[in-house]
């Protein structure tokens, strides 16, 4: 794409990123959450990809890094759930809610604008899912685009 679009992508990518992270972080008090925020960020990556083209982007954003992001997100999710076993609780027990400290501040009941540090394990899981979706959806786009760029191997075994 032209220089203007590339410049716009450069400007918009941080904006999209911070906005996606905002959606992820506020998943438990405003609409949004891990999946939505992750999808927003992944769309930001797709924006960079479309502005600069597949070959150039793969030098900055590797598939390995995205896959690592996805695996880390999933492990964080399942790990957050598994930690409940250490406390002798069942799988997916919300062991932080209402306990005070990090993310455990008791909420005021009824309509209120909400505090960030409530919700127990939910914000942690939100972040984990956000990271996972970020990696996953960006990888899907990269892989599909790699189907358009002919590799040498593909050329050979295509017959």
């Amino acid at each position, binding site marked *: *794409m032209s220089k203007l*679009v590339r410049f716009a992508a450069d400007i*918009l990518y941080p*904006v*999209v990123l911070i*906005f996606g992270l905002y*959606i992820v972080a506020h998943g438990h008090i*405003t*609409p*949004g959450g891990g999946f*939505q925020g992750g999808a*927003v960020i992944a*769309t930001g990556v*797709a*924006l960079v990809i*479309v*502005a600069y*083209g597949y070959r150039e982007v793969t030098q900055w954003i590797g598939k390995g890094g995205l896959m690592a992001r996805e695996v880390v997100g999933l492990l964080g999710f399942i790990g957050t759930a598994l930690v409940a076993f250490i406390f002798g609780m069942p799988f997916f027990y919300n062991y932080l809610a209402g306990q005070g400290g990090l993310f455990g501040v008791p909420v005021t009941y009824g309509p209120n604008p909400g505090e960030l540090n409530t919700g127990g394990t939910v914000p942690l899981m939100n972040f984990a899912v956000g990271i996972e979706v970020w990696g996953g959806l960006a990888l899907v786009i990269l892989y599909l685009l790699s189907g*358009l760029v002919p590799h040498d191997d593909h050329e050979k075994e295509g017959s």
Partner: protein
Amino acid sequence: MDQWLIAVLILGCLMMLAAVRLILGPTGPDRVIAVDTVNTFTIAAMVILGVVYQEIIFVDVAIVYGLLSFVATLYVAKYIGGEL
């Protein structure tokens, strides 16, 4: 409060009118601008509906829309331009 609802209704009608160009449009880019127009109206309608419902948080949806429909347009444009 009626003015908000009337504005939303008119925007809805305009959306349908823009869909006419989506049907007629002889070439790809014509259809793309029709969809782009619908998209703009959707965002405007969402912002106004946020006031109608008295729910401030709903406006976030419009921001997401504004940011992301751009990407789809870029992909289509890149495809039409033969660069993809």
